[in-house]
């Protein structure tokens, strides 16, 4: 019997996976197709990506359900299939997971701006996340991870929605940028206050993902660390996407440059580390060597 993920992270740094979307696209997912559709239409591809991350050394993979709230799926006319697509996402990751490894049910933003700046209501968002959390739990995930949140109100609604339907631990990552006065979401939520409020609302772990490079992530983790005693999650981007001359998109941080900051991210207080946009199984393999090499020595 494997220990609960929250017990594991008390003893050592735990490694998440890297990007999913770009891996799917590299395998032929067309722009405009909901990635979640492939949980049903091309399950072997999704499973292959999970397997690649597990083989690279990830302790935890996130399910292919980032855009799986019924509200987000509605943009593709797929809201009626939310339950099916999320259950399939969880099942595929579960099947790919070797014994002793973990599956996190990914839930990304619903893509609607909350009132008064936009049309969405907190209740509407809470219900959408609750529906997704239920399906992911039914599919067999170990924890839920609400990701890439840019509005603390939505993150709290998501957390409330998830906790209303399951007893699984719920992790929350938000996406912060560096401003002159510190780390904030585009809605102006400071990293420290976000961590404190999510902690109070019952999150099992809090963190930052996307937007920041691994270098910038160091300071953001430190800011989160001051505000909560919960485990902190850090999943940085590999810099910014850059278009090569007529060629494919590359990210501005090289693999070496990206992983160079991993020890500092851990020292700043991250218990969970992993990648976001621009990271691949090769990134995770390099991170595994750094984290475990250090801990073995």
């Amino acid at each position, binding site marked *: 019997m494997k220990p609960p993920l929250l017990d594991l992270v008390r003893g050592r740094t735990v490694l998440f996976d890297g990007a999913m*979307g*770009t891996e799917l*696209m590299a395998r032929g997912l*067309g*722009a*405009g197709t909901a990635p979640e559709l492939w949980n049903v239409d091309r399950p072997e591809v999704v499973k292959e990506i999970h397997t690649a991350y597990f083989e690279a050394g990830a302790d935890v993979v996130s399910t292919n359900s980032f855009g799986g709230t019924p509200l987000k799926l509605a*943009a*593709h006319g797929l809201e009626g299939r939310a339950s099916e697509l999320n259950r399939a996402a969880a099942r595929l990751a579960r099947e790919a997971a070797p014994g002793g490894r973990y599956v996190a049910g990914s839930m990304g933003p619903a*893509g609607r*701006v909350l009132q*008064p*700046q936009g049309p969405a209501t907190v209740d509407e968002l809470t219900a959408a996340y609750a529906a997704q959390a239920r399906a992911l739990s039914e599919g067999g995930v170990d924890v839920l991870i609400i990701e890439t949140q840019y509005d603390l109100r939505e993150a709290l609604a998501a957390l409330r929605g998830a906790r209303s339907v399951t007893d699984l631990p719920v992790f929350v990552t938000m996406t912060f940028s560096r*401003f*002159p*006065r510190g780390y*904030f*979401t*585009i*809605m*102006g939520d400071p990293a420290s206050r976000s961590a404190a409020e999510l902690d109070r609302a019952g999150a099992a772990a809090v963190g930052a993902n996307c937007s920041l490079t691994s270098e910038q992530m160091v300071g953001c983790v430190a800011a989160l660390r001051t505000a909560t005693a919960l485990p902190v999650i850090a999943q940085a981007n590999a810099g*910014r*996407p*850059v*278009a090569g*001359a*007529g060629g494919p*998109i590359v990210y501005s941080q090289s693999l070496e440059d990206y992983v160079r900051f991993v020890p500092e991210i851990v020292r700043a207080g991250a218990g969970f580390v992993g990648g976001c946009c621009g990271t691949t199984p090769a990134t995770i393999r390099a991170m595994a060597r750094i984290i475990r090499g250090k801990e073995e020595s």
Partner: protein
Amino acid sequence: MIKTEILAKMSEAIVAGDRVAARALAEEAVRSGLDLLEVVEQGYVPGIQRVGELWEQGDYFLPELITSAEAMKSAMAALEPELNRTHAGTRMGGKVVIGTVEGDIHDIGKNLVASMLQAGGFEVFDLGADVKLERFIEKAEEVGAGMICLSALLTTTMMAQRRFIALLRDKGLRGKYKVLVGGAPASRTWAEEIGADGYAENAVAAVRLAKSLA
């Protein structure tokens, strides 16, 4: 109220994102026969410019930007009928067609740019998200726009921005329109590489860029 006081209040209403006050002041200006061009240029525009500065300093964030843009639009709506009558043909901006490219459903950033452009005096035709490239051209031709703005959030859909420039060239229309690109993966280098006329980092910079090109 003396005029300088009214102009200052207009600016303050925009900075505060106070839609009610912004509109009431605009209506008062129309009623009392003020020079409305002056009202816009010395009252409201300095307000929205200040909002832009506060955003770039990291004091204002999206909510403030959105409420200020809404206040600006509300004031402009009250001024426009009279402004058009008395200053026909002196619109500050120009016509802009904007949308998120085909295959991409993300529209939060694009909506904000559309809103800020409108607040900045442009007449904006927002085609929404997942817009076929041909549709941008059809709309621009139909309304006589001078500028086309393409948004893309994904590295994959960003390629449509490149295809759009090629499409314009194929149709012999490249010289007719200024093309601006934006979205998380876009950059100045990208804009240069694909031969677009400009890229802006955020909605405030987009308005500045559009004004410099209009």
